[in-house]
């Protein structure tokens, strides 16, 4: 991928992420915190970003969402192709719910 293209891809993903996050938080804040894995403070922060700020952040040239689970078992469950994938997802959900949320230092 050429570098200009790469920058664009990152920007678009950031934009999509921030806009989705804002939408989720506005629709149902508590469920959004769970889905996004973020704390109350970060939810506030994201919700209050103006469109201008969202655009500006998106162009930061680095991804704004980070790899969420550093847990081999959980990743294994999420990526498994078992016949019982429903059970694997349920198991993953139980484990993921216990993970600490992203918070602001």
């Amino acid at each position, binding site marked *: 991928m050429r570098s200009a293209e790469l920058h664009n891809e990152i920007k678009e993903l950031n934009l999509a992420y921030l806009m989705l996050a804002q939408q989720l938080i506005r629709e149902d804040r508590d469920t959004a915190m769970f889905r996004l894995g973020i704390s109350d403070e970060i939810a506030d922060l994201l919700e209050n970003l103006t469109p201008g700020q969202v655009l500006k952040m998106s162009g930061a040239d680095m991804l704004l969402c980070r790899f969420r689970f550093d847990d081999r078992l959980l990743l294994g469950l999420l990526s498994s192709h078992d016949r019982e994938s429903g*059970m694997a997802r*349920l198991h993953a959900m139980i484990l993921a719910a216990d993970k600490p949320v992203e918070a602001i230092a």
Partner: protein
Amino acid sequence: MYTAMRNKSVVTEGREIQRAAELIELGARLQILEAETSLSRERLLKLYKEVKGESPPKGMLPFSTDWFLTWQPNIQASLFMSFHRFMVENAGMHGLDAIIKAYRMYVEHVQYNGMEQVLSLTRAWTLVRFFDANMLKVARCERCGGQFVADVFDLTRGYVCGLCHVPARAGKTRRRLEQFNAEQGTKVTV
């Protein structure tokens, strides 16, 4: 009764009716409505019929903790409790709000994944009451580290959850077998 009605604000009553209607839609039994609102039984009955178009089921609430310890209910109850814990610890919710939110997430997860939903709102509500009354607790699975519903008197050192170690006959209820036999034309029995 008369004084209670007189002292109650109309706004409060309006909120309670709304809350009760939400609970009824989610499948709550009359006992839950009586415990969670201060509306009279007559009003609740009327409301129930209006929302559901039928009379509420009679009889007692399920009162045994054992149900939550059998395989399928245990897994799903543990999922519900995970959501509930998240709502209490991270979203600062409590009481009925946390139960309703966790229950909605539970139903959504089960439906999205095409699984059989075994927990009713009434069961979920009872489950939280059992936790509050110290009749049930969560045990941490030794293998996956997840937290699962367990009897408060269970010895949970070295506990392994029903998902890490799926019992041979897990989920193969009589109903499932009948369904299976009907589809396959076989005559497997329990």
